[in-house]
């Protein structure tokens, strides 16, 4: 134990237990050399093989001892997978790692496709039981989208905000826009009313307006800045060129604003994509929990 000079320290500090420092790192998919992928694969194969080995009469169904076993495993898994939301937010002491949880969540969640489907014995119909199965599948499929986004988008997010001297943050992009707007406002003073109106329209447009689809599709048809650039250039084409044209400055500023806007919009698009699947995944999980409760309740009620 180190003896450390702490003349004014109110309490003696102790070495922290369970602390790890690791220079070699891997992402949640590769965590510990695909440990959870291996576990999930073994689990799925075991279920598949046993499905064919166990002879249930008259045919495989959720009500046999084998069906109940798979159902129990599946239900417990669903409950545990739901707990990720809690784990993520409860920052308790201890040797847990959210990355390991995510890794397990992903692979065990995928193995539910096998477990849940075998549990049905392929007896699907228009009832609450199949509803639970379908909701589960929706949750899993939305999760697969999530994995895809998580695996592919961070690079783009990082590239988009990369800059020659470091990285631009979202707040800095907004600040840049504000500063450009201020400069535009000043630079547009000498313009004639028709031209000034175009700049004014660009200033007045809230860069964050537009609906969800515009944001995620990164298509802003009614962008006043773009319109102003085009229109001002068209107007200028008919004007005689003179030195010191205030339009030059305005044009330059508008172009800078447009490229800043483009970057911010791309940033928001990627951020939305990283979140959008959760808008299906999470509510459907709760619907699944409700349907699952109804499913289990009805099974035992009508036993």
């Amino acid at each position, binding site marked *: 134990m180190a*003896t*450390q*000079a702490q003349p*004014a320290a109110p309490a003696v*500090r102790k070495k922290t237990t369970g*602390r790890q420092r690791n220079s070699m790192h*891997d*992402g949640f998919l590769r965590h510990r050399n695909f440990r959870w992928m291996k576990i999930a694969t073994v689990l799925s194969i075991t279920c598949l093989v046993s499905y064919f080995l166990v002879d249930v009469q008259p045919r495989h169904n959720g009500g046999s001892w084998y069906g109940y076993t798979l159902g129990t495993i599946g239900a417990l898994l669903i409950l545990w997978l739901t707990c990720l939301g809690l784990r993520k937010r409860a920052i308790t*002491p201890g040797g847990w790692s959210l990355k390991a949880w995510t890794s397990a969540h992903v692979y065990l969640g995928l193995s539910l496709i096998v477990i849940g489907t075998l549990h049905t014995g392929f007896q699907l119909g228009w009832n609450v039981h199949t509803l639970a199965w379908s909701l589960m599948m929706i949750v899993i499929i939305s999760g697969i989208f999530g994995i895809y986004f998580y695996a592919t988008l961070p690079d783009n997010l*990082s590239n988009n905000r990369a800059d020659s001297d470091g990285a631009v943050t979202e707040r800095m992009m907004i600040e840049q826009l504000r500063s450009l707007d201020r400069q535009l406002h000043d630079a547009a003073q000498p313009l004639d009313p028709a031209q000034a109106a175009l700049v004014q329209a660009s200033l007045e447009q809230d860069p964050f307006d537009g609906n969800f689809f515009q944001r995620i599709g990164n298509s802003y048809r009614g962008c006043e800045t773009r319109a102003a650039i085009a229109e001002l250039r068209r107007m200028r084409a008919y004007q005689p060129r003179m030195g010191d044209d205030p339009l030059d400055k305005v044009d330059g500023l508008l172009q800078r604003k447009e490229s800043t806007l483009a970057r911010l919009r791309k940033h928001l698009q990627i951020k939305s994509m990283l979140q959008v699947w959760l808008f299906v995944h999470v509510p459907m999980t709760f619907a699944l929990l409700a349907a699952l409760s109804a499913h289990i309740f009805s099974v035992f009620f009508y036993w």
Partner: protein
Amino acid sequence: MSEIFRVAIIGSGPAGKSAAGRAASLGLSHILLEKTDHLSDTIYKYQKGKHVMATPSQLVLRSDQEFEAGKREAILENWNQRTKELGVNVKFNAEAKAIRGTGPAIEGSVHVIEMRGRDGTITKKEIQRYAPPYEIELTNGEKIMAENVVFAIGTQGNPNRMRCPGGDLPHVQYQLDDPTEYVDEHIVVIGAGDAGIENARGLAEDAAQGNVVTIVSRGPEAPSPKESFPTAKEANALALLGDRNAGKLFIRFETDTASVEPGWITFSTRDGEERVRCDRIIARIGSAPPRAFIEECGIAFTSADRLAFPQLSPVFESTAPGIFVIGALAGYPLIKHCMNQGYDVIEFINGNTELKPADEPILEAKFRDLPGRKSVAEWLDLLRENVTILNGMNPLQMREFMLDSDAKFYRKGDVIFERAAPGSSLFAIAQGSVAVQIDPSDTSKIVPIGQGSIFGEVGLISGRRRGATVVAAEDTICVEISRNAALKLQSQVPTAKKAIERISTERLLLQMFGSGLKPDDIAEVVETSKIRQVKPGEAILKEGDEGNEIYVIRVGSMIVEKEIGGKPVFLSYLPAGSYVGEMALIAGGRRTATVKAAIKSEVIRIDGDAFKKVLEANPELLKRAKRDMASRQDINAFIEAKKDSFSGVVDMYSGVANFLVENGIGEATDVLLIDESLCVGCDNCEKACADSHDGLSRLDREAGRSYAHLHVPTSCRHCEHPHCMADCPPNAINRGPDGEVYINDTCIGCGNCQRNCPYGVIRMDKVPPKKPSLLSWLFFGFGPGPGEPSKKWAYANSDPGVEKPKKAIKCDMCAGIEGGPSCVRACPTGAAIRVAPDEFLTVARLEQEEA
């Protein structure tokens, strides 16, 4: 002539006021002279509503005045009240101009003042000291006689005045109490130091005030903020430029003031003179400590250094008999210290020789657990006599020194510290001896260190972890000297500095080369070695140069580069405690690579020929050195080979390494990095940080720089020699057992650390109120949810009766929390990692990346 006071106290700050209070309650005839028309001008001038802290908290306050932490207004009110109650004889608007002894000349007591002119010439002036009573001449011509004089005037000094025509007009002011006081004015701030920048920014902060603020700097604008404002802290310079870019204020470079007239100011600029509207001038062009005045009174200082303090006896008496110096001017800037000294000095003047200093109980507590019943004074003497590096101290310095240090008793066999434990303190052996276990695998291999010597100096100098386990060889008393105390000791006692340097060089060499070397073997090497400072980026070795010196990195770190295909390629990172240059010495030939400092460093330059002799005499060592050399050559060869086949990978490795070094990783011990190819931007790391630490996040994930998907967020790097520790009045920043640099509860919220941190990772904030539990948020929507609550919520939910002070907040690496840093644990994708540079910047990564 009027009455002769027993004591005259100059300055009514905490020290002077406390002294006057004591004199009044003892019934001593006294007078308290205050230059302004109110008491305690320094604190009076604090910004309105400032929370004044009472530190160090363990120090007992001994004064007739009262003091506890609180708002400026309440404290001043209390002091005024108490001063009245005690019946202190105060004389306001009384500024001392000269102090002369009126008694007979003191034989042989001549004070020599050295004055350094601007051109570097030194003129000497001799002052004959005269015995008391002293005649104090005031600026208004009045004269006051006193047997004793107590200087309690602080170090604030007098602001430098504007010397251009009109500089004495009433709208020229030298301080700014409340920036919100002024509206719709044209204000010029002169001087772009910290004070000027803070004032200008304060005046321009709220656009609604409508002030037009211009700050004037003599120097030209440079590409970097630091160079544009050389006298200001970088954070201030950056903020000022930011404000200018935001259009809040104007900065004029290369500008001087030519003249001032009501409503206008004339600048002289590079392009000629310019007359500008100006309703108010705030001149912040520095202040001079009142040293000249003090020296004229016959008081000698410890050195010619600008920051030196007067020479004082244990009872605060200066070299002029009957003149005492206390408070900030004596080197004690904290209010409690000042007040205690005010009390003590009057007791001494009153003939109380039995008075123990107020720090006696603290020191008693430090010595309580040592064997043998000795008084504090006896212990101090014993330590001073037995420990070589402490020999040169006087008793007062020794007391001060021990306040920052600890005396510890170890039984035979007790472990004093373990190998690889973090620690930056120095140990000195006052009694007994210790054994250093040099081989971690064999505890029987030891090197003894005897009484009077020191150990642990490697941690002190390099900031690295302990190199070996040290156990007590017999019952031993050690002094553990904190890093701050050790640095102070070295600057106060030059012999101590020399001794520490010699021992550390010798030990560093012995430890590095091992192989049964004895101190005698390397005596010549140590003798001929030189310690050299290296600036960041400066090369100590250049590829292709001649030379056979060996360099040992003592402080800081170095990077090794080799030119391959016309481009410098990063080869390796060398932390303190490694050596370079052996290849040219052993194998001959020219230098094979360039070695340059990653950060400000110190190297020991070892003469090649002297070292060669040692190598020849020790075949074991030569073998080892050759082995080390071979492994380095392997790395070089590996990278050169790879450079052909995997050029891109090597460039990337080199680029990443350089990027990290540029971002301060070279001085980091443990840093948070984010792999942006995995980061989904969920900010769960920030939320986890806030939830593990009173609801305040200590990291900003998005901010900071990136290179090739590797991001260095704004978060503490736990530097080897933390910049934040450099100037912490209550000494609240320390290094903990996990190597973390943390701020303890004694923080007074002064903000020095925030300004000193080059990476901007320290924030000043109040702890928000406690949030409802996670489950009640999840199920019932109570509270703001995970993460740092919004300012609005914190404001609405805080107890209005309790005012919480703003304190400095920074990463403490989640020390004490099982599982370690929560930012890493809470990352869902594994993007957040914490690394040490020497582990991270290795060629092993290159091999892994290739795989």
